[in-house]
Each structure stands twice: as structure tokens, then as C-alpha cells.
């Protein structure tokens, strides 16, 4: 039975050897030699140190193309013209599905035709050497960003290849992405990833790990996101991870977003051991964007302002071309600079908004409800508790495609635009909290002259892409 316990060294070794045989490039991994490679990297490529020692929020875009030389060029552009502080390497979908043969064909195709036939960088196919060429050619720290339920080989190769930060986690890279993997399975996969990061850490190479906070990116109530961040943080810490960046995706209400980021930081420091350095990352709005670059820039601007007030350690930026999918590198850099300008204009200002503390207390209380339910369900074991809580619906994620989550929770915005819960399913929350949500949603229903219903949910899901925060009904009559 899988539990929240550190994998023994011999188990790590055994797994590591098996995993390396999944694809030919696995053979090139040499742990001792990889440690020496990491030790040879200059200070400005050490992800955890750069992130943890920064005074102001650092900015990071998303970006990945199949060919090595193109990826080098893309990152150089985002670093120079986009003024990105931290760089990404986004992995292609085939690699996320462990379909390395297809990724290989796509890469060959890309090399022959010059087209981007993959939607990201197939790091497993590029292998240790390819990764190191990228690390060597790039003047900033780089994180692996993906969405891979079974990222064991990807981690083994990219760690050996010099990457010092790795996104994802057993819940956050499973529940929102797929229904093809059980939660027990991904927890086991990620125990290996975290244990490997821990092994590097023990040897002085602190690999930064970043659970994916936005989850389904669709009106996720802050306490649900934070509870999952804390669980994934705890699982990673058990395996020896010492640099953890907990994530949160903007919901668009400034007070709630600032409160959530503060709650995330405080609970992270409380819930995780003192050995772990906890930082936070704020994702600019992950829901649907307006099909208009001008309006998209407004959404990005509000994200920048929120970041200036909440001061997360890192911000993942969006581009004005978000609506149409993968942005041009110019649009990507543009999203970075719009965010930078707003942050730099606002961050020295004393902007202290009423009600942030109250909202933070509510979020923390809700999060504690969820965490207690998890610990109770697992008799103190986080892994067993997580499995049981998702199974019963005590822990749930709205709009999750995975069968591992009930998906019974439905969120809706209140009259102030904060995300509340309309349908609770079996979510472990005390009645007082439920009553607070009910009252807030009832206030909105009164304002709008309609009942609380799934219509609010549907309207809210589309609201920002249609230019508003709250999905109000159309005014009636000739107004």
C-alpha cells in the first residue's frame, strides 16, 4: 500500500534503472557526472537560488518548440526582448503521453521541414546532451513545464541535462489533464520524481519543484487549489525536495487573489517543514481569454496589478494572443513587458485594500477543513488520505476530466466577483463556511433577480472572455 514515505535508496536505484530503459536516451544518464555538471553551472543558472533571493516578483513565460536551435533562439529572445527573469521549456504532447516514438518522428519531421510539427520541446528525445546544450546556451535559469502524468524519464533526463526546476505533481498533473491515469499511479510516479530531485538536493543541487496551482484553470475556489498545493508540497518534501514553489491561478478578483496568495505562502510555511524553502508563483488568468489582443492586454494588466500588491516570488505571464493558442514570440514577449510595466509602476505603492485579511482568514479556514479531512481519511497518512478524500469527494476539483475526482463541486462568482461554491457535492467543509458562501451567492442572485443555478456557473465561465468579470444576465427589455 502506497504511503507518504521516503523511497529507500535501493528502491530509487531500482526504479531509476528500469525507467532509463524506457527510451534509448535514458542510457546516457550518469548521476555522479550530472552532479559535477550542475556544480559547474554559474550562479545565474541556479534556479532555486535566483528565485529565492529575488526582491521583486520574477517573470516567466511559457514557451517550447521542437528543435534545439529554435528553442535556444526562442529563449534568448524572451530573455532579451521580453526581459524574462526565468525561462521555461514547455514539453510537447507526445512526450507528455510517454509516446517517445511519435515525438521522435515529429522531431525528425520538424528538422526536415523546418515546421513546428510538435507543440513543445521533446526533451527525452533531445536527451542529456541536447538539454545541456540548451542550458549552456541560455543565460538564465530554465524550468521544465509540461503536464505529464508519468514524468519519471523526463525528470531523470532533464535533471541530468542541467534543468534545476520541474513543474507538476501527482494531483495537479493528473486530475486537470486526463482520465487515463489513476491517482495512486501518479502519486507513485511523482514519488520517484521528487525522490530523484531529493537525491540531487542531498548532493548540493537543489532542484526546485513547482506543483501546478491553476488546476483546471476554471474558477477553482482558492482553498481547493491551496489544499492540493500543500498536499503535493508535503509529498515532495517527504522525498527530500527542499525548494518548493507553490502555485495559484488568478481568479480576477483582486482582494481574493491577494488573500489567496498570502494564505498560500503562510500555510505553506506552516504546513511544510522548516527545511523547505517555500516560494509562491502567481499564474495570470488561465481561463478563457477575450478573442481580442487589446482586451487580453487588459486581463494581463489586472494580473500585473494583482502581482504588484500580493508580491508572489514569481509570475507566469500570459500573452495577448492567448485566445488563439500558442503565441508568436513577439506576443509572448509583449505579455511579459506589459506585466513588467504594471508591476514596476505599482509595486512601490502602498496599496492596502480593505477586506484582504478577512478573505484570507476564510480561505485558510476552508483549506484547514480540507486538509483535516484528508489527514483523517488517511489516518494521518497524506497519500492514503488523498486517495480516500478524492474517492469520497471530500476533496474535489471543479471541471476535472479525471474519473479520480468526483467533479461534483460547482463554483460561481459572488456579487463582488469572488469565486464561491454553489454545489458542494461531498466536499469536506463545515456548515458555517457553506452558509457564508450561500449568503454571498444569494446576494448576487438578488442583484440579478434570478435563482442561484448552473446558469451563473455557465455565465461566469465565459464572462472574462466576453469582457466582464461576473456573468450577469443580459439586461431585459429595451435597455
Amino acid at each position, binding site marked *: 500500500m502506497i504511503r507518504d514515505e521516503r523511497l529507500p535508496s535501493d528502491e530509487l536505484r531500482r526504479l531509476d534503472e528500469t525507467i532509463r530503459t524506457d527510451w534509448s536516451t535514458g542510457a546516457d544518464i550518469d548521476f555522479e557526472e550530472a552532479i559535477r555538471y550542475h556544480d559547474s553551472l554559474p550562479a545565474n543558472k541556479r534556479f532555486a537560488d535566483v528565485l529565492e533571493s529575488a526582491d521583486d516578483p520574477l517573470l516567466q513565460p511559457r514557451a517550447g518548440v521542437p528543435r534545439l536551435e529554435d528553442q535556444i533562439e526562442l529563449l534568448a529572445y524572451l530573455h532579451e526582448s521580453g526581459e524574462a527573469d526565468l525561462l521555461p521549456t514547455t514539453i510537447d504532447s507526445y512526450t507528455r503521453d510517454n509516446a517517445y516514438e511519435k515525438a521522435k518522428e515529429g522531431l525528425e519531421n520538424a528538422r526536415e521541414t523546418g515546421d513546428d510539427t510538435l507543440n513543445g520541446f521533446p526533451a527525452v528525445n533531445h536527451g542529456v546532451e541536447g538539454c545541456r546544450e540548451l542550458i549552456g546556451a541560455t543565460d538564465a535559469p530554465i524550468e521544465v513545464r509540461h503536464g505529464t502524468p508519468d514524468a519519471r524519464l523526463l525528470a531523470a533526463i532533464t535533471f541530468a541535462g542541467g534543468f534545476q526546476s520541474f513543474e507538476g505533481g501527482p494531483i495537479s498533473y493528473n486530475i486537470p489533464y*486526463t*482520465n487515463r491515469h489513476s491517482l495512486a499511479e501518479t502519486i507513485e510516479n511523482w514519488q520517484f520524481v521528487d525522490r530523484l530531485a531529493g537525491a540531487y538536493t542531498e548532493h548540493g543541487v537543489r532542484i526546485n519543484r513547482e506543483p501546478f496551482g491553476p488546476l*483546471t484553470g*476554471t474558477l477553482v475556489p482558492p482553498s481547493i487549489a491551496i489544499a492540493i498545493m500543500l498536499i503535493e508540497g508535503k509529498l515532495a518534501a517527504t522525498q527530500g525536495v527542499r525548494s518548493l514553489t507553490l502555485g495559484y491561478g488568478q481568479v480576477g478578483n483582486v482582494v481574493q487573489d491577494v488573500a489567496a496568495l498570502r494564505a498560500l505562502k503562510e500555510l505553506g510555511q506552516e504546513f511544510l517543514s522548516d527545511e523547505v524553502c517555500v516560494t509562491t508563483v502567481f499564474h495570470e488568468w488561465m481561463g478563457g481569454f477575450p478573442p481580442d489582443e487589446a482586451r487580453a492586454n487588459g486581463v494581463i494588466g489586472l494580473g500585473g496589478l494583482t502581482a504588484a500588491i500580493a508580491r508572489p516570488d514569481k509570475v507566469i505571464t500570459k500573452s495577448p494572443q492567448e485566445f488563439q493558442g500558442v503565441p508568436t514570440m513577439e506576443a509572448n514577449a509583449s505579455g511579459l513587458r506589459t506585466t513588467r510595466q504594471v508591476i514596476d509602476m505599482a509595486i512601490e505603492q502602498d496599496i492596502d485594500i480593505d477586506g484582504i485579511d478577512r478573505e484570507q482568514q476564510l480561505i485558510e479556514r476552508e483549506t484547514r477543513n480540507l486538509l483535516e479531512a484528508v489527514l483523517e481519511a488517511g489516518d494521518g497518512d497524506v497519500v492514503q488520505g488523498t486517495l480516500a478524500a478524492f474517492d469520497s469527494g471530500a476533496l474535489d476539483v471543479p*471541471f476535472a476530466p479525471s474519473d479520480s475526482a468526483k*467533479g461534483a463541486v460547482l463554483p460561481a462568482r459572488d456579487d463582488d466577483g469572488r469565486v464561491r461554491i454553489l454545489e458542494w457535492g461531498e466536499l469536506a467543509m463545515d456548515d458555517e463556511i457553506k452558509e457564508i458562501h450561500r449568503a454571498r451567492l444569494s446576494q448576487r442572485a438578488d442583484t440579478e433577480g434570478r435563482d442561484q443555478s*448552473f446558469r451563473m456557473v*455557465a455565465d461566469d*465561465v465565459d464572462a472574462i472572455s466576453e469582457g466582464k468579470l461576473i456573468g450577469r444576465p443580459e439586461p431585459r427589455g429595451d435597455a
Partner: protein
Amino acid sequence: MSNTVVLGVIGSDAHVVGITILEQAFRTAGFNVVNLGVQTSQEEFAEAARAHDAEAVLVSSLYGHAKQDCQGFHDVLEAADVDAVTYIGGNLAVGQDDWERTRETFEALGFDRVFDSETDPEEAIAALRRDLRITPPETERVAANT
């Protein structure tokens, strides 16, 4: 009549928001809803429709590969002895194809109705009531007149 509808996202598509809202809407409108979730195969649709004696099969697709995913779908339904109204909705074609051509394509594949991604759930519900000759519940008729 069972008033049962089977709902799902076909193919490898993992977009769940639309069917989550559809499920709520049809349930509120008085239907029994079997939500198969995302990444549902043709066979899973057919099996569920037979098992629940469904009167309607609602297929959602948002990632642009609906045409491939639905090839032969109605043969699979027929082979499973499913005799249900079939609707499809979502982003049914990649890029700038015009909507009339898209609709014709999917009607030719055998769907009774084809909806774009801007369609409100209410519209699909109203259409299904017409197709199944169902009278809306009393409360709703009253509300509609106020």
C-alpha cells in the same frame, strides 16, 4: 419514456467545462443524465446508450478533430441497437471553415442536429423537447411567461 440522455466528450478531447454545464442544465430540465465525461470512445457511447435505453446521445467536441472522431459513429450505434436522437456540438472544425459546410458535414455523418460552441444549453434542451415531443414542466412554463 425514460427521458435519459447520454452525454460525453468524444475522442481524445479533455475539455470538460461544456459537458459539466450541459449535465447540470439537462438535469435541471428534468432529464436523466448519464455523463460519460471526457475522452469517450464511440463504443463507450453506444454501450451506455444501450444499457440506459437512452433517447438521446449528445456528443461534445472542442478540440477540432470531431470529424475524424465521429467517422462511422452511427454504424457503431446501430450495431448496438441504439435508436436515439443524436446531437453534436462544440468547435467542430479547425480554422476558418464556414458554419453551413460544417453543419452539412456532420448531418451527412448522421447527426440529427449540429450546434456551434456559442449555443446556450437552453437551446439544445428546447430542441430535444421538440424532437422527443416533451412538454416542459409547469414551473418552467410559468417562469417563461413572466
